[in-house]
């Protein structure tokens, strides 16, 4: 690399080379984010979302739902690990696709990650055409839903409805069941 890197500026390659120390490393437009292992209630919600999405996506054939750790990158200055996401059906195979098309991303907020989820990562997902983003707020028991062109979220406190193109019927998630 001939261009000297600037202070504080990280790349996807730098993040891939980080030690496997139990932290989650991500980079959004050059900004490094380090997150310790999530707490159990966070993972409980991640698990419930994956179970619901798994049954729905298999029935409807609208993509492959997965959880992180993952390698989602759209450019050399970006690599993220969304809590839950749905890869579009064209991304078959066993490798992480370059510049993937994501039909859905869900990030479960925690006090230490809420700001980056709401701002840096939310903007990244919007800029890269993630069809629907759910920011799941367990403290307030609500979900902010974002679409690519939105400047403010739509806030749901009862249920989430998701019907991607190609699906015959919507997925309806009661938030009472998600938050427990």
């Amino acid at each position, binding site marked *: 690399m001939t261009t000297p890197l600037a202070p*504080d500026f990280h790349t996807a390659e730098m993040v891939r080379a980080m030690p496997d120390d139990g932290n989650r490393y991500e980079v959004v437009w*050059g900004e490094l984010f380090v997150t310790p292992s999530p707490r159990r209630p966070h993972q409980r919600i991640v698990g419930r979302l994956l179970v619901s999405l798994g049954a729905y996506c298999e029935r409807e054939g609208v993509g492959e739902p997965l959880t992180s750790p993952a390698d989602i990158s759209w450019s050399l200055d970006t690599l993220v690990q969304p809590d839950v996401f749905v890869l579009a059906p064209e991304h078959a195979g066993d490798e992480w696709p370059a510049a993937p098309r994501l039909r859905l991303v869900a990030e479960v907020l925690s006090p230490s990650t809420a700001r980056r989820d709401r701002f840096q990562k939310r903007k990244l997902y919007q800029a890269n055409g993630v069809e629907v983003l759910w920011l799941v707020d367990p403290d307030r028991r609500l979900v902010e839903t974002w679409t690519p062109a939105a400047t*403010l*979220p739509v*806030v749901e406190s009862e249920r989430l409805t998701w019907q991607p193109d190609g699906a015959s019927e919507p997925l309806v998630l009661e938030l009472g069941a998600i938050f427990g």
Partner: protein
Amino acid sequence: MPLAPEYFTADMVRALPSDGQRHEVVLGELLVTPAPGWQHQRIVGRLFRLLAGACDNLGTLEAMIAPADVSWGDDTLVQPDVFVVPKELAIAGETARAPALVLVAEVLSPSTARQDRFPKRALYQRQGVTTIWLVDPEQRLVEVWTPEASRPRVEREHVVWRTAEAGDLVSIDLRRLFD
């Protein structure tokens, strides 16, 4: 539908009390900055004089200095340290919709480096600011960003401001800028 209180709008920021802090909002994210220090302002002043001189020679551009509001939409209102706009835009003022900035220079300080380097820099790129300078007095360098760049070019000796129309407008000696 309740609005999540974490998100701010340009109007909410305009309505905040004047408490000596700089309030900005970048795509809904509120950024609050205390009054700058003397060294920051010395460099801002020098940059402004150099850029204003180049603009005066050219005649079609004008240099501006903070605090001056720039807004590209309901969820964004920023006050760049120094920026350059076409003269007609400078006359139209802060009511201009979707202002096209020719250059933005942000002088970093420990409390603002993160927000200048990441959310504000990414905003300026998205809004097509032709030249973005992140001036780092501690490291004595300038990061030069353009709208399409995914990494900065780092200048440690000189930084040259050029436009496609007018060519080289001014060359700034960084040693003299930072001393």
